[in-house]
């Protein structure tokens, strides 16, 4: 640390151009870091991080005479915030438990304390952990190895304050750099009046993104109207979007303002916008351009609606008509769970708390109680370690399903690995690795040849079954013939 302080004096100087200053400060320097993912005694500290820039040791309590190197200091890192947290008080950690040192291949970790060190589930006295690996002190604490910049960039001030590790005002849980980058992107998209296109897999939180953008914008007091374009009946799409007069187009239809009219003064969230027929995409253009000008069906005078469109799709952007695409100045890529794996324990914790609040059975069977109140769940650390390394394809939705499965099939008073969870994890991991080798081109070709028969296609591509295929098609924004895709997802 000492020779770095000289550097940092130079950093403070205002000399030079901004980009040169940033480069000199090493703003983009990234180091491996340990993120607390599970702790027996201190579950409230999950999500805290220690960046490893040099040799460190880690254990219970503050510095002691026997420390082989400086103690890792954990922080609740947020943009512009990194105040040191108190030493761990975990009773299963020895006073000096791990020695950690950055080396070329990753972090060299050595066990000095009593409880067994494990890296990715394997018991070792010493080993090297890389980004994405899981370092466990058996039944004491689990750490996820992530890449971190010493200081997160951006500002928290745009997001209403919320406690560390809790959901933010709009329901997003996460303290990773990726989570904070998403919050910053939402805030930016909210700060202008331009329309927004959200891109990301289903399950990656598009509805939550729309809620955030609306809630952070000046339109907050206005309505947030949300609809899934794929569920609009084709013959009524125009009426649904633009409204209609009474008895038009069909007798008996009530007068409706349409989604665009309803969203006046607020935000219209249209999910799966790529499912709108091209004709309707064209009709939308006018409303997006001319101050929300639109015509109710059966009415000749145009109306205006001041609305901001937040549209979303899980398809590649070229699935949209290009002139519609051009109307979206802001495009926000939603970060999937795999790009912010260190948030998995926090999200799991939040999901479990929600389940416990909704079910007395869950609360009483699986949760600790402190001073009369619901406290942390009894979570087997192996489950968390396995989830941290699981290749999620359906993001938070898949995580939630796995947790419910663990609860349903639990045989004891804790939530952990059960044969059912094991089988499910193995199955979807297998299909994820299987599918990694199939490219989009392969799929397009197979669709052209056998698009009507997913079973045949799956066989041809060497996939286990048609469900694996359907999942893969979805991921690439493709779909097979309608009649056979029924039971998927």
């Amino acid at each position, binding site marked *: 640390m000492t020779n770095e302080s000289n550097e940092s004096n130079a950093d403070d100087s205002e000399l030079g151009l901004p980009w040169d200053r940033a480069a000199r400060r090493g703003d983009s320097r990234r180091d491996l870091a340990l993120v607390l993912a599970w702790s027996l*005694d201190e579950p409230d500290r999950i999500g805290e991080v220690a960046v490893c820039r040099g040799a460190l040791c880690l254990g*219970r309590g503050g510095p002691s005479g026997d420390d082989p190197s400086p103690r890792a200091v954990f922080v609740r890192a947020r943009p512009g915030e990194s105040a040191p947290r108190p030493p761990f*008080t975990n*009773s299963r950690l*020895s*006073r000096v438990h791990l020695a950690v040192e950055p080396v070329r291949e990753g972090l060299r970790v050595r066990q000095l304390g*009593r409880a067994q060190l494990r890296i990715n589930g394997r018991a070792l006295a010493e080993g090297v952990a890389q980004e994405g690996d899981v370092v466990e002190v058996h039944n004491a604490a689990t750490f996820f190895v992530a890449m971190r910049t010493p200081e997160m960039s951006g500002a928290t001030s745009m997001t209403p304050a919320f406690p560390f590790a809790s959901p933010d005002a709009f329901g997003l849980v996460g303290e990773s750099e990726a989570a904070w980058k998403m919050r910053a992107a939402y805030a930016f998209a909210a700060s202008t009046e331009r329309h927004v296109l959200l891109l990301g897999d289903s399950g990656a939180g598009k509805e939550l993104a729309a809620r955030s953008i609306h809630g952070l914008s000046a339109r907050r007091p206005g309505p947030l109207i949300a609809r899934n374009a794929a569920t609009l009946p084709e013959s009524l799409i125009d009426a649904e979007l633009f409204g209609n007069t009474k008895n038009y187009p069909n007798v008996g239809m009530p007068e409706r303002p349409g989604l665009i009219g309803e969203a006046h003064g607020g935000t219209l969230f249209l999910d799966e916008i790529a499912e709108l027929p091209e004709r309707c995409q064209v009709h939308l253009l006018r409303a997006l351009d001319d101050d929300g000008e639109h015509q109710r069906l059966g009415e000749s005078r145009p109306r205006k609606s001041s609305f901001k469109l937040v549209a979303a799709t899980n398809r590649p952007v070229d699935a949209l008509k290009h002139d519609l695409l051009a109307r979206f100045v802001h495009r926000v890529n939603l970060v999937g769970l795999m790009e912010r794996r260190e948030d998995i324990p926090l999200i799991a914790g939040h999901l479990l708390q929600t389940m416990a609040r909704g079910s007395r059975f869950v609360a009483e069977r699986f949760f*600790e109680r*402190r001073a009369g109140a619901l*406290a942390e769940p009894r979570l087997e650390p192996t489950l968390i370690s396995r989830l941290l390394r699981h290749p999620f394809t359906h993001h938070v939705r898949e995580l939630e399903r796995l947790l419910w499965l663990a609860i349903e099939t639990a045989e004891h008073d804790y939530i952990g690995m059960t044969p059912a969870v094991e089988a499910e994890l193995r199955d979807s991991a297998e299909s994820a690795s299987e599918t990694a080798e199939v490219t989009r081109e392969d799929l397009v070709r197979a669709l052209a040849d056998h698009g009507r028969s997913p079973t045949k296609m799956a066989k041809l591509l060497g996939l286990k079954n048609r469900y694996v295929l359907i999942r893969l098609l979805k991921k690439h924004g493709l779909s097979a013939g309608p009649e056979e895709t029924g039971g998927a997802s």
Partner: protein
Amino acid sequence: MSLDERLLRETLELALAGEGFPARFYEVLFSAHPEVRPMFHRNSAGAQQKMFAQKLCAIVDSAHEPERMAAEIRATAASHRVYGVRDEMYDWVGEALIVTLREACGSQWTPEAEKAWRDAYGLIVAAMTTP
């Protein structure tokens, strides 16, 4: 009196490294003195065990700094008066603690270790019970 912090820590870490030391402690306490069991109703057994083990560690880790050790004990002392803990109960807890430590440390439990723990526990109780 100066405490043998190293010996206290070694035996405590050894005991805690095994499975279920804090749970066993309450088992021993409740079987010798069933009348105290109903006093433990605000925390689930698991949470109570974690807090007790954490507190023991924090006290032992501060044994070389009497000021800090006193501070660690002060908060606990205040809450224990609210729980209605009577002085003689500290003897019961002390015995259960020694029995459980001895059991968990097995062959590594020595007369020196027992003395170190009796000394330490005496100091803790004195701090807990002086208003």
